[in-house]
């Protein structure tokens, strides 16, 4: 039934023109169908789900209830109600805004996110384009997002917007470097930029690229990539660009209604892209079990499960960590992520020469990982934990005893 409907929609040009359908019509039809319908539908559902999850998770962490009213189960239709409200909201255009650019900016931001979905394989068979340079393509499309954010900030003609736009663009551009640098070890290991090839090289849970016995440097890279990708998607603790206490809402302060919701959709779409990239490169894509048994039907679900789990960690971090200062942000990028990136790239190249998937390598990697974890536990225990500090005397109790 569904399959027939999809087949019918795909074949519309041929139904109209027979086998002599003009090539350009087929081209436009297929691109609109994949980009405009399938991917838009996926991003919308993803955003609805993750916004609801974000509100419920944050509520749970702060001992609140969160949305409870709309929908039968725990406010599960709250986001849809919000979306309908956004659609009917008045579309405000600031009087002094640069009108063509103000209109084009949300499109640019969202198009940048949408473009990267073309290259993401959801399974060995469920993919839009099997690009030979998938990783590089996804990194490259973020350039469009940066331009969109700058244009949004500038065209609004508001100081909050322009500060937010500048901060966001600076953060994007500087964190692009460590993100790419920490993806390099995997590319060295896989010898390919093709996402499907990289995922299919990690057939079982024991051969995921992230494990230290495969390559201890890649383990470091995964953690650093995740941190850098959080910064690239402007998520807390790196959300200086839209910090409510300073900049109202950053580059999209002046936007309302459906245009604003495009920025919002793009944020969640971007989160999924970086999570999916992390899953494919480090966490084995759609491979989960010790033996490669995943069929093409089950693969997308496992892939989605892993990617959504990484998104959950992003949400978890958002409601756990306070926002960084600007100097801490630059410190982290240039003095932590970047030097570690150079070490992991060089180290991976050497590891690849001598230890990659050899018995010595497996043992050495495990020993290094075990030693690191042991050292971390030692350091953690040697620091006085809050429980073991001398008990603080509370002021009210002191006042009461005096």
């Amino acid at each position: 039934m569904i399959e027939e409907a999809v087949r019918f929609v795909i074949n519309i040009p041929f139904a109209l023109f027979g086998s002599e359908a003009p090539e350009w019509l087929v081209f436009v039809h297929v691109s609109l169908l994949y980009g405009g319908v399938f991917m838009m539908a996926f991003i919308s559902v993803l955003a609805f789900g993750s916004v609801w999850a974000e509100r419920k998770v944050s509520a749970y962490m702060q001992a609140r209830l969160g949305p409870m009213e709309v929908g039968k189960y725990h406010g599960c239709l709250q986001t849809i109600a919000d979306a309908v409200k956004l659609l009917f909201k008045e579309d405000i255009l600031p009087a002094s805004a640069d009108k063509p650019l103000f209109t084009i900016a949300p499109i640019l931001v969202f198009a940048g996110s949408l473009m990267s979905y073309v290259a993401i394989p959801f399974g060995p068979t469920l993919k839009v384009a099997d690009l030979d340079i998938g990783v590089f393509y996804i990194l490259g499309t973020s350039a469009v997002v940066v331009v969109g954010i700058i244009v949004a900030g500038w065209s609004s003609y508001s100081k909050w917007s322009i500060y937010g736009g500048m901060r966001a663009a600076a953060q994007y551009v500087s964190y692009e470097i460590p993100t790419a640098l920490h993806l390099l070890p995997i590319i060295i290991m896989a010898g390919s930029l093709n996402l499907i090839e990289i995922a299919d090289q990690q057939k079982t849970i024991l051969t995921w690229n992230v494990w230290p016995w495969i390559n201890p440097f890649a383990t470091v890279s995964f953690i650093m990539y995740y941190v850098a990708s959080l910064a690239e998607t402007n998520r807390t603790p790196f959300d200086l660009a839209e910090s409510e206490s300073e900049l109202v809402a950053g580059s999209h302060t002046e936007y309302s209604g459906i245009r604003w919701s495009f920025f919002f959709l793009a944020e969640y779409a971007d989160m999924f892209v970086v999570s999916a990239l992390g899953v494919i490169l480090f966490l084995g894509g759609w491979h989960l079990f010790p033996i490669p048994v995943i069929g093409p039907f089950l693969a997308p679900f496992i892939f989605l499960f892993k990617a959504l789990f990484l998104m959950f960690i992003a949400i978890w971090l958002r409601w756990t960590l306070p926002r960084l200062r600007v100097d801490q942000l630059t410190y982290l990028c240039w003095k932590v992520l970047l030097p570690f990136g150079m070490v992991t790239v060089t180290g991976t190249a050497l590891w690849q020469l001598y230890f990659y998937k050899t018995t010595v390598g497996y043992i050495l990697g495990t020993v290094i990982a075990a030693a690191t974890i042991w050292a971390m536990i030692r350091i953690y225990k040697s620091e006085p934990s809050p429980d073991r500090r001398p008990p603080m005397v509370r002021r009210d109790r002191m006042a009461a005893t005096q």
Partner: protein
Amino acid sequence: MFDFIFFVFAFVCVGSALFVAFTPNVVHAALGLASTFATLAGFYILLGADFLAITQIAIYVGGILVLMLFGIMYTHNIARVSGEQVMMQVGPALLVVVLTLFTLVATILSTAWPAKEVGPPQPTADRIGVLLLTDYLLPFEVAGILLLVALVGAVVIAQTPVRKSIEESID
């Protein structure tokens, strides 16, 4: 099929380049330039050079254009200058333009343009990588050293006022 896409790209590319030249608004011009860069990347894809196309987008749109937009945004009210475009040195400019046009047209007319049937595009990334580390190793290294020098130079230039102010405060 390729013809159709080629003409769409060509139209957008030339159109946005003309827009860059004629618009008085600097920010609009910068965005027109972005469109020109993006369509150039489209030409690279049509020629089967996928790696080069993404490099074009990442470096020209993501790097150079963002830098230009930064410069524009740091300049106060630069895009709201309501001035007329002034023509200066019409004579020399005209001479250069005519000479360039003549050279281009002469080259286009005198070249044979052999049309060759090519198969489906091959992956290029690995070949570029191998060539960079074998035949073109020296230019690659020289470019790397140049970038390093630029990086160190930028740090030195950015650092100078701070050091002076510290010395002044010590004095």
